[in-house]
Every structure is written in structure tokens, then in C-alpha cells.
């Protein structure tokens, strides 16, 4: 097969990726888009296999079989609550692949300086993505502490690693060889940098990190594309890179923090929030039922706690009972609720909630004063009015879902402890707030039982 023909087929594959992403603009067409994109990938792979003068097939077969098995099994088995961990792992394998493609490219034909620079970039970005994703995975799966790990002179150490990385990269490009000690230094330092970059980031900032690593895996693929002079890698890598960067921006904006602030500082070190004092007003299930029963407008505000309690199915059932009771039910979702972008939406979709009931923060806030009951399930910071009112609060300025403007707020909470960022929440002391203590899943199940009796 001629190079022209192969590249023509790559153009078709690229068009299919683009069309696939375009179809993701609505849940109604998204399944088709994903299939189109998958077919594009299949075509690109097949044409590569038949097009190149491939000498040895056995290595390819071994790799494809192992990869397909791992990929297919994880994809089928993973629980929707564990999606953040899985995406982190997939980001990591993308990074690893770019690292190795770059490395292997050194064994190919003599490379120009420009190609060498892209090869080293592919190794470097791939390495950072790989080790960073492994740490992100370990944090999300709670194999290691999900808290920020900070130590003295951390920035200094990171700057040192980065400087050493740049120097050894330059030295390698000046005198390239597959046995160069600088090559191994670059690989080792890029892996170290990935680890160092992710350990100071706390659990609540996970959505930012995971989006950023997503973007890196795309940029790494892009660099690998330059390294082996392949258009399709550049196009696909750039699409993924852009996607990750946009998501990172959305997440940062939703937390009112700059990317630099998320990456380089543990949360809330600088400011202490005004201590809020007051009395919480607990409510029992029977009284909560009576209020819900007479409500005509209810919105649920889920957070990571809903995922932990696995409460999404009972929440959906309660929603259906309320609807059957003539009540208007919505689910208000903050952009950074959960551990990755769109995490809550997927959980609720899994529980069979209709997607037109899922509303964004900017859509629900203007009509919050018309909501009879806002039910907060396992969310804390994203509904904390201190973000709006208390200039001393570490989360001051973060856009929140204004549940305190609803007529009544129910907060489902295990006990009185502060949320992930350790911020006291004045919402709990408001006149219109009622605390429903206990496990969220059990509390909602009890409400459902009340509705059914």
C-alpha cells in the first residue's frame, strides 16, 4: 500500500473522530458518535497493519491480546462510582504508550534535531502522565491517603527536578544514542516529576487533576505523532489535549481557583474561615416526609457523599414517588461535585434518572427561590453560603448552588463534621435548614417507606 493511500485513510479516520466528538453535544446522538469514533480507530489501525512493511507480527499479536483483555474486562466490570479511578488508569496507559513509542522511535532511522526534540518531548510528557496518573489512581482508590501531601521546600525540589529534566533533555538531543545515560535520566526524572506534581493535590481537587492528566495524555500522543511523522496522531492527540484543557478550565472556574493555585498549594493553608456558631435543627423522617409530601417543587443536590453511600438508586426512587405525587423534581449538579467532571450525572443516569431532569448550577440558581425543598445529599462545599458571604473563607468566591435561597433545605449528613476542605458551613445553622442525620441511603429508604405506607 502506498504512503498516499495510507494517509488518505488517516484523513477519513480523523474525520470520523471529529464527527464522533460533534455527536457528543447531545445525549441523544452520543452513542452513535462513540461508535463512529470507534470505527474510525479500527480503520486507522487496520490500514497501519496492512500498510507498513511489518516484519514481525508476533509482538503485535501479544500486545493486542493482552491490551484487549485488560481493557475489555475493566470496561465491563468497573462500577460507575469508580469511574474516576478508571479514567486515571486509562490516562496513565496512554502516557506509558507515548513514552514507549518515543523511546522505540530512537531505534528507527537516523533522526533530525527537530525529530529528536519531539521524541524527547514524547518521552517526557508520556512519563509525567504515566506516573502522575498512577498516583492519582492510588489517591482516588484510597490505596494511599487522598489528602494533600505537602512538605517544606516542595516547590524548590520540584523546580530542581524540572531544571535537571530540561538540562538532561538538551544534553541528550546534542548527543543522541539509545544507550545515552541522559536518556535514562530523562525517563527517571519525568516519572519523578509526575509523582511530585500530583502528591500535593487533595481529594477535593481531583476533578482538576484528572482533567489535566487527560489533557497531558493527548499532548503526549501529539508529541509522539511529531516523533514518528504521523498526522493522525497529531490530530487525535490535539483533540484530546484540547478536551482536557477545556475541562480543566471549567473545573478551575467552578472552584474560583487558578490552575497554579490548585497545582502548587495545599487547600486552605492561607486563610481561616470565620467560625460559625449556631444551633442545628434536626428533623426526623416522619416530619421530613410531611414536608416533602406537600411540596410541589423539589430539587436534589448530590455530592461525592451520595456516591460513597451508593444512594443514587434510592434517590431516583424517591424522585419518582415525588413525581407521582404531582411534584416537580430536578437534580441540581455542581460542576465539581464528585471526583471527576460529570461524575454525578453518570451515577444518576445509571440509576435511571431521565437526563432532562439533570440541571446545571447556572440554570437552577435563578429559580431557587421557587423551590419548596432542596435536598442536599453528601454535598458540602458546593452549597456552602460562606463562599458567597465570608471573605475570610478559603472557598470565598467559588460559585455555589444557592440552596439556602430555597424555602426549606434538608441536609442529609452522617454527623456534624466539616466537609473535605475542613470548612465550617453556615448553611447548617440557617433558619430554613433541617438536618436529617444518618446514612443517606438509609434515610432516603426510610422516606420511601413513609411514602409507600
Amino acid at each position, binding site marked *: 500500500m502506498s504512503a498516499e493511500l495510507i494517509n488518505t485513510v488517516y484523513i477519513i479516520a480523523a474525520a470520523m473522530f471529529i464527527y464522533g466528538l*460533534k455527536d457528543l453535544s447531545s445525549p441523544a446522538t452520543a452513542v452513535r458518535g462513540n461508535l463512529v469514533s470507534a470505527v474510525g480507530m479500527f480503520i486507522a489501525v487496520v490500514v497501519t497493519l496492512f500498510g507498513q512493511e511489518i516484519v514481525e507480527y508476533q509482538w503485535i499479536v501479544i*500486545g493486542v491480546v493482552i491490551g484487549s483483555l485488560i481493557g475489555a474486562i475493566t470496561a465491563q466490570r468497573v462500577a460507575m462510582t469508580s469511574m474516576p479511578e478508571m479514567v486515571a488508569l486509562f490516562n496513565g496507559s496512554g502516557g506509558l504508550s507515548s513514552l514507549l513509542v518515543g523511546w522505540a522511535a530512537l531505534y528507527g532511522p537516523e533522526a533530525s534535531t527537530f525529530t529528536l526534540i519531539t521524541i524527547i518531548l514524547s518521552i517526557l510528557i508520556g512519563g509525567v502522565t504515566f506516573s502522575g496518573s498512577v498516583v492519582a489512581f492510588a489517591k482516588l482508590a484510597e490505596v494511599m491517603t487522598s489528602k494533600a501531601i505537602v512538605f517544606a521546600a516542595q516547590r524548590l525540589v520540584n523546580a530542581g527536578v524540572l531544571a535537571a529534566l530540561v538540562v538532561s533533555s538538551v544534553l541528550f538531543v546534542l548527543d543522541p544514542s539509545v544507550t545515552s545515560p541522559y536518556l535514562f535520566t530523562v525517563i527517571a526524572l519525568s516519572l519523578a516529576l509526575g509523582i511530585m506534581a500530583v502528591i500535593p493535590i487533595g481529594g477535593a481537587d481531583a476533578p482538576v487533576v484528572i482533567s489535566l492528566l487527560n489533557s497531558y495524555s493527548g499532548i503526549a500522543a501529539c508529541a509522539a505523532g511529531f516523533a514518528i511523522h504521523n*498526522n493522525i496522531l497529531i490530530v487525535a492527540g490535539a483533540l484530546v489535549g484540547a478536551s482536557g484543557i477545556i475541562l480543566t478550565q471549567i473545573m478551575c472556574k467552578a472552584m474560583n481557583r487558578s490552575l497554579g493555585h490548585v497545582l502548587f498549594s495545599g487547600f486552605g493553608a492561607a486563610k481561616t474561615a470565620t467560625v460559625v456558631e449556631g444551633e442545628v435543627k434536626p428533623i426526623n423522617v416522619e416530619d421530613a416526609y410531611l414536608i416533602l409530601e406537600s411540596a410541589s417543587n423539589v430539587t436534589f443536590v448530590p455530592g461525592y457523599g451520595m456516591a460513597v453511600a451508593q444512594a443514587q438508586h434510592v434517590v431516583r426512587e424517591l424522585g419518582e414517588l415525588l413525581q407521582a405525587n404531582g411534584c416537580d423534581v430536578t437534580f441540581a449538579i455542581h460542576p465539581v461535585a464528585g471526583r471527576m467532571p460529570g461524575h454525578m450525572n453518570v451515577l444518576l443516569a445509571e440509576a435511571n434518572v431521565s437526563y432532562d431532569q439533570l440541571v446545571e448550577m447556572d440554570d437552577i440558581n435563578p429559580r431557587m427561590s421557587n423551590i419548596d425543598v432542596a435536598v442536599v445529599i453528601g454535598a458540602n462545599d458546593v452549597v456552602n453560603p460562606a463562599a458567597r458571604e465570608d471573605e475570610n473563607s478559603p472557598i470565598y468566591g467559588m460559585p455555589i448552588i444557592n440552596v439556602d435561597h430555597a424555602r426549606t433545605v434538608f441536609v442529609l449528613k452522617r454527623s456534624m463534621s466539616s466537609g473535605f476542605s475542613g470548612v465550617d458551613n453556615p448553611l447548617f445553622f440557617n433558619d430554613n435548614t433541617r438536618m436529617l442525620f444518618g446514612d443517606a441511603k438509609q434515610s432516603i429508604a426510610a422516606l420511601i417507606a413513609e411514602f409507600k405506607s
Partner: protein
Amino acid sequence: MEAVLLGMVLMLSIFLGFELISKVPATLHTPLMSGSNAISGITLVGALMSASMGVEMFANILGCIAVAAATINVVGGYLVTHRMLGMFKRKTTDGKAGVRR
């Protein structure tokens, strides 16, 4: 000259990427991430080339691991995205049959 052409392709793809992705609704951000994970498995194309050069054993092994890692992305990414997107449904009537009051 080739570097310049590749740079042109990169520039256009980035702008196109930004246009496309900013139209994806927040509801689909998780499938977007897993789907773009699958697309970044395009390094498989590069990995296939390096696994098959047949020049040196070590390069073949690197290529083989690269193929495996990229295949995890491609196969796992598309399958899990498909599984997830299948869950996003719209119900036309509110309140389902069989709900007792």
C-alpha cells in the same frame, strides 16, 4: 518543511478541538473523558510501527508494551464509554407504572 506542515495540522486541530469540546454539555463530561481517552489510544498506530520494525529485540519489546498499553485505552475506552452512554435515557412520561401511594 515537513515540520511546518505538521505544525499547521496541529494548529488547526487545536482550534477545531476547542470548538467541538466546548459544545459538549456538562452532563456528558465523564463520557467525554473516557471517550477522549479512547481517542488518545491512537498512539496504537505509532506503537504498531515500532513493534514491527524488527531491528532490535529491545525495540520490539518496547513496542509490544506500547501496543498493549494503547490497546487498553482503545478497547477499554470505547467499551466503557458505550456502556455509560447507554445509561443516559430520557423518559417521556413522568411517574412510572407500578408506583403505589
